[in-house]
């Protein structure tokens, strides 16, 4: 009974009231200056010229096409990574095989590679002077400086999210329930959907939410493969950059405010999922 208590509840393990107040104040000040004020500034600058200017910036055709391209990229990248993330998590959680550790590392690589390097890699594969460049040109297929390149780059940067959340959950929960289901005659697929998935659903959702935030907000990798063709190959973050470089600050921050709302929604969802999963 003595092991369940926490330092938070033990008076003797607390610093004096003054020390505590100072430390909490420093944390509040630090987070306010570094996180909250920058977030607030986005909205402040977006609405600097009033709500009319804000709305007209958002209804600009360039912005609208950026929204659709962003939705397209995330709409493909997230489901692809969901499916392959679950397949990979099952593989890594249930089986041991030579090269398993290498595979785990490879799945994590996109987190440690600079997005710019990732983008460059795709240019070197599919660009005009790239490995598959001549083939693609002969068949009149555009990947780089076109939507497919943006989708590919987005898939690359979001590879680790779902696996990372789901694998530890699957490992922690072991195989016993799956084995029980299968001895009762359930097929592998049925077992996965009826037994495994319900146990890991919050982890899956968590991974999807984070992957989606990254997919919609990715800048570096997408920037390299996009070519910045306004209204054609610009996602929302790229569009914000273009507007900013044109000194259209209200436009840039209006677009930024959309992505900021997305990030706030992500944080709220994340918190809700953590709370539900408990």
């Amino acid at each position, binding site marked *: *009974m*003595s*092991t369940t208590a926490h330092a938070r509840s*033990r*008076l*003797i393990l607390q610093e004096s009231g003054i020390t505590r107040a100072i430390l909490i104040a420093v944390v509040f000040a630090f987070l306010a200056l570094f996180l909250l004020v920058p977030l607030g500034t986005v909205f402040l600058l977006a609405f600097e010229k009033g709500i009319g200017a804000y709305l007209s910036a958002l209804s600009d055709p360039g912005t609208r096409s950026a929204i659709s391209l962003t939705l397209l990229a995330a709409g493909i990248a997230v489901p692809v990574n969901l499916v392959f993330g679950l397949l990979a998590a099952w593989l890594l959680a249930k089986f041991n095989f030579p090269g398993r550790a290498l595979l785990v590392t490879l799945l994590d690589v996109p987190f440690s590679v600079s997005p710019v390097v990732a983008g460059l890699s795709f240019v070197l594969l599919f660009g005009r002077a790239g490995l598959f460049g001549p083939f693609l040109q002969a068949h009149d297929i555009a990947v780089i400086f076109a939507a497919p390149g943006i989708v590919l780059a987005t898939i690359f940067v979001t590879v680790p999210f779902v696996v990372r959340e789901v694998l530890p959950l699957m490992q922690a929960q072991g195989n016993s329930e799956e084995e029980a289901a299968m001895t009762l005659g359930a097929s592998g697929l049925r077992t996965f959907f009826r037994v495994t998935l319900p146990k890991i659903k919050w982890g899956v959702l968590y991974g999807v939410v984070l992957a989606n935030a990254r997919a919609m907000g990715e800048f570096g990798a997408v920037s390299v493969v996009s070519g910045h063709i306004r209204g054609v190959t610009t996602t929302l973050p790229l569009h914000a950059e273009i507007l900013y470089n044109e000194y259209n600050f209200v436009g840039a921050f209006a677009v930024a405010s959309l992505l900021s709302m997305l990030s706030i929604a992500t944080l709220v969802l994340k918190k809700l999922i953590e709370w539900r999963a408990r």
Partner: protein
Amino acid sequence: MSVRVERVTKRYSAAGTPAVANVSFEAKAGAITSIIGPSGAGKSTILRLVAGLELPDEGRVFIGEQDTSNVTIQSRGVGLVFQNYALFQNMTVRDNIAFGLTVRKRDKAEIDARVEKLLSLVQLAGKGNRFPRELSGGQRQRVAFARALAIDPKVLLLDEPFGALDARVRIELREWLEGVQKEMGVTTLLVTHDQEEALEISEHVVLMFDGRVAQAGSPGDLYDRPLSPEIAAFLGASVLQGSVKNGQAQAGSFSVSATGTAVEGEKVRAVLRSEDLKLTRSATDGEVRAAFVRRLKVVGGRVKVSLDLPHGESVSVDLPRSEVDALALAEGEQVFVDVSSARIFYGEFDI
């Protein structure tokens, strides 16, 4: 050094019921005093109050003749041992044991010598450079004991120290502790929920219910003269309920003539300890009742016999296996119960 707890009350939240209320007892110098009781009785709180991990809302704690009200935990000189060992994972066994001396800035050579002595005392000589994670549970707890003893504590405070260990190791370590305690003569307060452990190891027992002291005394006192049926039940006796009828104290199948002060219709409870009950296969003289054997539970060399009495009550008897074999007992069979003595309690009891 003795420990005296005087009318101590502690509440964890201002409005809530107190975790301990008006508790007083004395732990004699150089002896083992056990604090027992069901979980939530406030045993650990008492220990934490003595250690200085909590401060009492009312009352005082004396260590020796010193009132500890204004003495910090660091300077109380108490040795703490917890159920979960609470070893410093980042330090070797040696550094764990030396910790109390290191923070006191003792001489290095003196620390080394003392640690070596303690390592052999806890039978871990040569394991000083191991890390806690490399030791078994029993070994870890011995390191915790050595660490607590290193500072020459005035009082050793043990919070369920054997609780996380398996049965064999628990008995081994308990016997080891008894030996070391006797040898060093350090005053020891032991919190445990295991009444057998307490009765076996301690000179003095403080039994707590609901934050209050229900009874304090020697193990023999508590066992032979429980102040209430609840205490007897906690210590393993069977309790039968009944009332006074026609001058007889009747509790289920048992009846004895009531004492003079007993009032007709008053509540009666009969406390039957295992050794008060004698089993026979044929009815003989004396207070003999027919009963059915409901269950036989073999625990090593002993057997716990659960009996159903004619009036639907149940009692249990703890017998050596040889005796059960000699009686040829089997579940569902009839036996006769001879009651040699029973304690009868009249009326309601406030514990």
